[in-house]
């Protein structure tokens, strides 16, 4: 037994209102830079829907994750080591930027500075790749709230796997939101596919990172991740991915997406697992057994044998304590209500989800029945095959049994707690019908519904003995193009193209960086002739408009 600790996340999907606050705050912190304009380390998808990048779940096409071969061993779906090296000059399974979307910005200046005219001014969208006007036809969440889903939802790879036909008529369908970040997998295929060995899993907390110095831009990780959560920075030529905000986690603070989540639906905590058991569990034959196999890899942090082994493996006492108090452990292993996203990719993902009961409740309510009555709810879970099968396609490789079990627990909690809230005697039979006690029901309710800050986030601080590095302000990634750039430090490398100032993705900056427009196309610059936004000046050459023209007689 080799005990390792993993920082993990759970999202309670019933509470997600699809506000994208998590995505926006994450973007502001990590990907608000030229080169990663199209990148969302955190994105929120409307399901059913095609996802971001488009149809990323279609592994026939993208070849992400692991596949079990005839000898019962795991191999990368995109091919083994030799094939990877043979394909190094052109990666056959790489999504193009258009599979995400072509990034753009708007000519905002036009709105305030346009000269007087009879028409109202328009801020036209400009491509951030070419600087030209563009028509926007797709984005990271184009089908938000099922917008246009009659057209696109048929492309959803999960729908294709379902036995029943799902109508995408707006009145008849169901929907929910699926926020996604990197899964920080126990068996990460991105790490396995990196030819340079620049990607790694941290021994201490299991966070999967890209070593930006070691990355040589071979892009194999982008293809190999079945969740498409490694991105290629097209400016620096390096791979970037969700870092689980490790500079915060190390200080015992939650990630940006968790901290700012409006629905307060994200949980962070440790899981102890047996690293020696991971490969065997991921290689199990039947896809439906993968969930149980992964649960089997986790260790009980209260078990004295596990504690002894953890200590022997150098895990500190406060970390063991944190693992015992972990909300993740409660929801995965005790209540068994959380489920992994696409276990069939065999990467052993570590961001789990509590499936949403809302598709079921909504149907009940729309028929005028009592959406909090246990019996009605249980019957609906049995009867509403479409949402249940769809959820199974996401979380259990198509096995409806664990989905039903999880939904029934949520339904039971709903009606059990209603009695208490109404001041009547709670019905222990409801709790018993899902194999729980009333006390457990109430504890689960506190964790899921009340969800106090300190219950949601149980994050032990890193044992960092060099205190200087714990300073919140200093970040080793504050370099031009680096994911943490934005610090004040001098960051201009000898070969860098632009000085190390944070560059936001705006038309002004785009032109500033490009200088002249080489393509002879329309220039995007002179929206407001003679005006210069000094905030955007990177300190390079003197841009036109900085000083008044020499011969003009205008008073200074």
């Amino acid at each position, binding site marked *: 037994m080799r005990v390792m*600790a993993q920082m993990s996340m759970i999202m309670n999907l019933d509470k997600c209102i699809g506000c994208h606050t998590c995505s926006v705050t994450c973007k502001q912190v990590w990907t608000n830079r030229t080169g990663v304009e199209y990148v969302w380390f955190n994105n929120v998808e409307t399901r059913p829907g095609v996802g971001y990048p488009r149809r990323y779940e279609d592994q026939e096409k993208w070849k992400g994750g692991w596949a079990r071969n005839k000898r019962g061993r795991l191999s990368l779906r995109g091919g083994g*080591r030799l094939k990877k*090296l043979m394909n*190094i*000059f*052109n*990666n*056959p399974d*790489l999504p*193009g*930027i258009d599979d995400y979307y072509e990034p753009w910005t708007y000519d905002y200046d036009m709105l305030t500075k346009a000269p007087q005219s009879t028409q109202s001014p328009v801020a036209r969208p400009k491509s951030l*790749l*070419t600087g*030209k006007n563009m028509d926007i036809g797709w984005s990271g969440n184009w089908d938000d709230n099922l917008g246009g889903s009659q057209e696109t939802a048929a492309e959803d790879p999960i729908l294709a796997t379902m036995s029943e036909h799902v109508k995408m008529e707006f009145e008849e369908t169901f929907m929910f939101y699926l926020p996604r970040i990197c899964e920080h997998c126990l068996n990460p295929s991105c*790490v396995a596919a*990196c*030819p*340079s*060995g620049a990607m*790694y*899993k*941290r*021994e*201490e*907390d299991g966070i999967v990172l890209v070593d*930006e*110095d*070691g*990355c*040589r*831009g*071979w*892009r194999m990780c982008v293809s190999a991740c079945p969740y498409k959560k490694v991105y*290629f920075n*097209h*400016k620096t*030529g*390096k791979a970037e991915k969700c870092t689980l905000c490790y500079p915060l986690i*190390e200080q015992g603070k939650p990630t940006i997406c968790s901290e700012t989540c409006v629905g307060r639906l994200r949980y962070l905590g440790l899981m102890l697992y047996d690293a020696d058991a991971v490969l065997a569990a991921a290689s199990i034959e039947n896809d439906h057994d993968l969930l149980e196999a992964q649960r089997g890899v986790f260790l009980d942090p209260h078990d004295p044998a596990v504690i002894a082994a953890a*200590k022997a493996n*150098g*895990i*500190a006492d406060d*970390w063991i304590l944190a693992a015992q108090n972990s909300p993740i452990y409660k929801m995965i292993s005790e209540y068994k209500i959380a489920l992994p996203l696409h276990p069939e990719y065999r990467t052993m993902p570590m961001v789990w989800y509590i499936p949403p009961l809302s598709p079921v409740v909504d149907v009940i309510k729309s028929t005028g029945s009592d959406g909090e009555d246990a019996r009605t709810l249980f019957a609906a879970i049995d009867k509403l095959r479409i949402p249940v099968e769809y959820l199974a396609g996401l979380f259990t490789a198509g096995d409806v049994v664990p989905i039903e079990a999880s939904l029934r627990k949520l339904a039971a909690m709903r009606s059990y707690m209603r009695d208490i809230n109404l001041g009547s005697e709670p019905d222990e039979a409801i709790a018993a019908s899902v194999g729980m006690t009333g006390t457990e029901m109430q504890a689960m309710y506190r964790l899921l519904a009340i969800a106090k800050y300190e219950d949601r986030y149980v994050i*032990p601080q*890193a*044992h*960092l*003995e*060099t*205190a200087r*590095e714990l300073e919140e302000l200093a970040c080793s990634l504050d*370099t031009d*193009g680096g994911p943490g750039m934005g610090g004040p430090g001098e960051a201009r*490398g*000898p*070969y860098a*193209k632009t000085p190390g100032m944070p560059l936001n993705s705006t038309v002004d900056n785009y032109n500033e960086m490009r200088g002249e427009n*080489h393509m002879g*196309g329309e220039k995007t610059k002179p929206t407001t002739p003679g005006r210069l936004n000094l905030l955007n000046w990177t300190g390079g050459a003197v841009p036109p408009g900085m000083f008044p023209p020499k011969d003009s007689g205008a008073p200074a």
Partner: protein
Amino acid sequence: MTTWDILLWVAFPYVAMAVFVVGHILRYRFDQFGWTSRSSQTYENRLLRWGSPMFHYGILMVFGGHVVGLLVPKEWLEFVGVTEHWYHLGATWLGSVAALLTIAGIVLLMIRRRLTPRVMLATTVMDKTMYALLAAVIVFGTVATVMYQVLGAGYEYRGTISPWIRGLLIGQPDPSLMANVPFFFQLHVLSATTLFLLWPFTRLVHVFSAPLGYLWRPYIVYRSRDARNVGTGSRKPRRGWEKSERPTPDRERVPR
């Protein structure tokens, strides 16, 4: 032997060699973050899918040919049974295939770079310089080969250029060997030398990152948070590295 001969065939190559070596070391030391192939595949893949493998496999073959032709002395090859005749056949036929692949590849790549606005805009001045030089090296080399080896009677560069290069490498340069080499071979050598001079400052550095180690390393890589300090993260701190606590008042030494 004129001053020019010495400048072109001794001084210049040695300057290029020095810049090549020192430049790579310095860049590797100080610019790891800039060390990448800087692929543009995400912008465009229709042309790249063909152009890139053609060029790269072609140029690898060309490289192999140059090693055999330039660095391995003729006598050694003959010793292992490769006679003049066989060498010539091999060099001509394999060389032609390699040249065709390389040229078709680089033409495709250059067309793509010029005609795809996204790719063009991501092209730096250094990229353009590098492309021009690379094309010049390939064109001069091909012209020389076609003129002398394929159409002509065959020029015996293994008696002049090859020993000149080996002389340079072992520190006994002999510029007279190059003095009477045909013009296009000279141009080829000079443009290649210039390319080597610029090499460390271009994206060509990715050549030295060919990730052969991937064939042997374990799939999953673990790294410690900070390898210098064993005892970080969930690890117990090493003795002497424990977290320093703020001294509590009652444990503070009070002067008596």
